[in-house]
């Protein structure tokens, strides 16, 4: 929704338009004032010196940061490749006929959804080695992320199955298919298609999770910035640079997910969510924004 919210307001008349114009000018002035105050505060403490910022355009520094971006991408990619099947298996297990299997999957999913990732990482970093086997640092980061986001993805897949029109499975049963066939041949493939936008936006979560690599010293982007800043003492500058990189990459991924969502809404496929002419579909669990936040 880019335009003015149509739920709350009528089209403004002449007096309302004048008030809006005044409010616009005042708010621009206030925002500009805050920005200027911030810049003055930074300038007074010598944080705006050009050298501190142009430092990051030097080739070796760029190469150092780029290697961090590479590792971050690698971590996120490996996690995505492993977490997707794990999530699918957990979702299918949770919805299976077997009570035992369902219970196991519920416990797994709920546990890893409600325990912070950092603690799981500490388990693999500090507790697991005491049992005699130490994973390489890369896997000390990847395994916890896969476990936690696998649990989240399982719920995404399940939400997709729930959102599918029940006529699909009813028709399949009517054709004489068995429960397992209904799930594998009819329901699950369509559910996957429904949740593709959500899956894409989960990539943002993976990229954010990869920043916890600092805890196990995986040389991902944030860790590189940390090393750089402890060497140069350009704390604000290093972290700002990597923050901008993360924001741009993640914003691009979110935009892509939104585009997929819009396309899916425009061309509803068989069994999809009923299209809403107003575009005011109530927030469902499927919406990428409401599903999981951190």
């Amino acid at each position, binding site marked *: 929704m880019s335009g003015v919210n149509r739920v709350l307001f009528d089209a403004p008349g002449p007096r309302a338009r004048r008030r809006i114009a005044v409010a616009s000018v005042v708010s621009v002035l206030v925002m500009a004032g805050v920005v200027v105050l911030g810049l003055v505060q930074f300038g007074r403490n010598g944080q705006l010196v050009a050298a501190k910022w142009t430092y990051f355009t030097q080739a070796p520094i760029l190469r150092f940061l780029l290697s961090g971006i590479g590792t971050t991408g690698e971590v996120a990619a490996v996690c995505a490749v492993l977490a997707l099947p794990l999530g699918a298996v957990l979702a299918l297990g949770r919805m299976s006929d077997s009570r035992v299997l369902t219970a196991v999957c519920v416990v797994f999913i709920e546990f890893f959804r409600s325990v912070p990732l950092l603690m799981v990482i500490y388990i693999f970093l500090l507790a697991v080695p005491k049992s005699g086997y130490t994973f390489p640092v890369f896997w000390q980061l990847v395994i916890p992320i896969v476990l936690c986001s696998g649990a989240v993805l399982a719920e995404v897949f399940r939400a997709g199955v729930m959102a599918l029109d029940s006529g699909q499975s009813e028709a399949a049963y009517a054709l004489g298919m068995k429960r397992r066939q209904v799930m594998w041949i009819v329901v699950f493939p369509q559910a996957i298609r429904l949740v593709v936008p959500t899956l894409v936006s989960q990539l943002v979560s993976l990229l954010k999770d990869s920043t916890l690599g600092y805890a196990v010293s995986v040389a991902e982007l944030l860790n590189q910035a940390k090393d750089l800043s402890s060497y140069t003492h350009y704390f604000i500058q290093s*972290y700002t640079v990597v923050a901008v990189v993360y924001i741009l990459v993640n914003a691009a991924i979110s935009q892509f997910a939104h585009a997929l969502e819009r396309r899916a809404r425009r061309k509803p496929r068989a069994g999809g969510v009923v299209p809403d002419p107003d575009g005011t579909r109530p927030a469902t669990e499927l919406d990428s924004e409401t599903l999981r936040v951190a």
Partner: protein
Amino acid sequence: MSEILKHIGVLVGGLGVTVELSLLGFVGAAVLGIALTIMRVSPVTPLRAFGTLYVEVFRNIPLLVFLFLFVFGLPDAGISFPLFTSEAICLAMYFAAFACEAMRGGINAVPVGQAEAARALGMTFTQSLRLIILPQAFRTMVQPLANVLIGIVLGSSLGAAVGVSELTGRVQILELQYDEPLPTVGLAALGYVVITLTIALVAGRVQKRMAVRR
């Protein structure tokens, strides 16, 4: 055994810090989120633009990066707070973006006809907001806002990375000091599971109570 009993005290203290951080963070995020929501649905273009920019930035920056910037970066610019306060501010600012999206989603889910009908009946703007829009919007906000709160609880664990000694931080310290990882980790995990399941349960109850019976 006595070691474990001693740990329980430390861990319960950590749980207290986690709960405190989460509540402070949630209240802050809710207040900021309301302000951002008002900006994003207002007819004033600069305010709308600011709201959108804020939400886009904070939804896409990793919490840990923001925390590092705030805790390690800002003191260089002469802005510094105690660690606990810093983390509470960070959690509030970060999750305000998600709270805003949850609230805006709720308002947008109210069909346009409802507001139009309210205006047609001659209600003023505040009347239609208070009597028609917000009660319906709140219904669809409960679950997303509960997710935000759960996100804050889990996010507060990153305090361990900047030296706030909450539950996860204390688990790390105990694991390093003593050789009994299992009970420590088990107890701490139990703490988190209890908190998040309680939030989910309460949210479910509230939602059920507010559901429209037709």
